[in-house]
């Protein structure tokens, strides 16, 4: 039996010190990500806000990143955990490239890997506080999936995280159809993002739209949506309200 230095691992079951290592709540967070499948691939949108509680601390956070040749990852939730995930994925893609065998991890594989990572962290009661959206195209096959901080995952024709589930999914269910053109897809995403901008208090009017097709991925420059605040209901919101 080998003699080894007996240092207690930090994340052992013993002692209150180990609890300080576990995530209890998120600090800097991103809000919704919305994505849909269209004719040539996947379109994904996310704003660039990083909130620190109710403060809008960071306004240029890129919450969507390309992964390898075939995938695009969007994240909401704790930004530092998203950065950690990108670090894990960097290593995954590196090893994939080092095989140098002409094969490469597709979006389905990356989604599966992320699901396992999220589920395993949940099992150790130390979750990565994110909801992830993974989209991509490989060999003509489009793929769009999502995984939550406790490991719940699925794929669908359109997905959203956080408030997007409440506000964007219903719009997508009504208006999404197979073989959307790029323009129609962008218009639909912008419609969803505009509703989120009006109604999600952690949303900001600075967003990026990312596209991934068989050829590769592009993430747009940040831009803002046109908004209209002159609705009479907004002008005098308490008019007609009982007891006001």
């Amino acid at each position: 039996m080998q003699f080894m230095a007996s240092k207690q691992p930090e994340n052992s079951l013993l002692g209150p010190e180990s609890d300080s290592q576990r995530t209890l709540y998120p600090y800097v967070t991103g809000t919704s990500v919305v994505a849909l499948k269209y004719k040539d691939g996947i379109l994904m949108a996310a704003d660039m806000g990083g909130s620190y509680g109710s403060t809008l601390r960071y306004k240029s956070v890129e919450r969507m990143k390309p992964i390898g040749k075939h995938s695009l990852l969007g994240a909401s939730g704790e930004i530092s955990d998203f950065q950690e995930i990108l670090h894990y994925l960097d290593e995954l893609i590196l090893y994939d490239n080092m095989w140098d065998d002409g094969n490469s991890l597709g979006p389905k594989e990356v989604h599966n890997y992320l699901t396992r990572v999220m589920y395993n962290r949940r099992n150790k009661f130390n979750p990565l506080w994110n909801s992830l959206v993974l989209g991509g195209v490989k060999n003509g096959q489009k793929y769009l999936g999502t995984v939550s901080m406790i490991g719940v995952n699925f794929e669908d024709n359109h997905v959203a995280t956080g408030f997007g589930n409440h506000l964007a999914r219903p719009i997508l269910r009504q208006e999404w159809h197979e073989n959307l053109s790029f323009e129609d897809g962008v218009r639909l995403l912008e419609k969803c993002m505009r509703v989120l901008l009006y109604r999600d208090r952690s949303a900001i009017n600075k967003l990026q739209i990312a596209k991934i097709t068989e050829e590769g991925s592009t993430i747009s420059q940040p831009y803002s949506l046109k908004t209209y605040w002159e609705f009479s209901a907004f002008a005098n919101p308490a008019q007609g309200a009982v007891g006001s």
Partner: protein
Amino acid sequence: MTKQQANWSPYDNNGGSCVAIAGADYCVIAADTRMSTGYNILTREYSKICKLADKCVMASSGFQADVKALQKQLAARHLIYQHQHNKQMSCPAMAQLLSNTLYYKRFFPYYSFNVLGGLDNEGKGCVFTYDAVGSYEKVGYSSQGYGSTLIMPFLDNQLKSPSPLLLPVQDAVTPLVEAEAVDLVKTVFASASERDIYTGDKLEIVVVNAAGIRREYMELRKD
């Protein structure tokens, strides 16, 4: 200063219902395809049914991440079994494996409510029903999930199976033929969808018989 409590739960219930019915020479396993969380629908097309072996199919409702992990565990163990014994696992053998796998996590359970269905070594239908920690029983029919409270009494009434309370113990397989059992499953889910908010969208039916495995779909209410 009091110790900080976690404000997140490692569990969630993603809803749905599953049913399995055993017949003399067939087994019907069915589940809806709705995946929800709280009052939201996450997706309308998620399969809760997993083929574990040639003549053994499992349907599970509950926490989807645990269900997925459980299915992967069983599939991996089945592969090892095939390598070691050069044959497929029988349904009763898989039933025991599932029970042991669930009990292994007795103190941090798989939040998964399962029904296992298939053909035993003689080609007769068999259904096994489980709780989340592996307690199981061979029965003629069973349902699990949110809709089971609505479905089970209906099955008790319509399947014409011998009562489990009779002595001597009689075999619980239903005397119905395959087509009648499939029809009953469709009726049962249509009814459950009316009153259970977590059941609906689409019904997936898998039939295991001597000819192999067959899959069928039926639309359900989307509200």
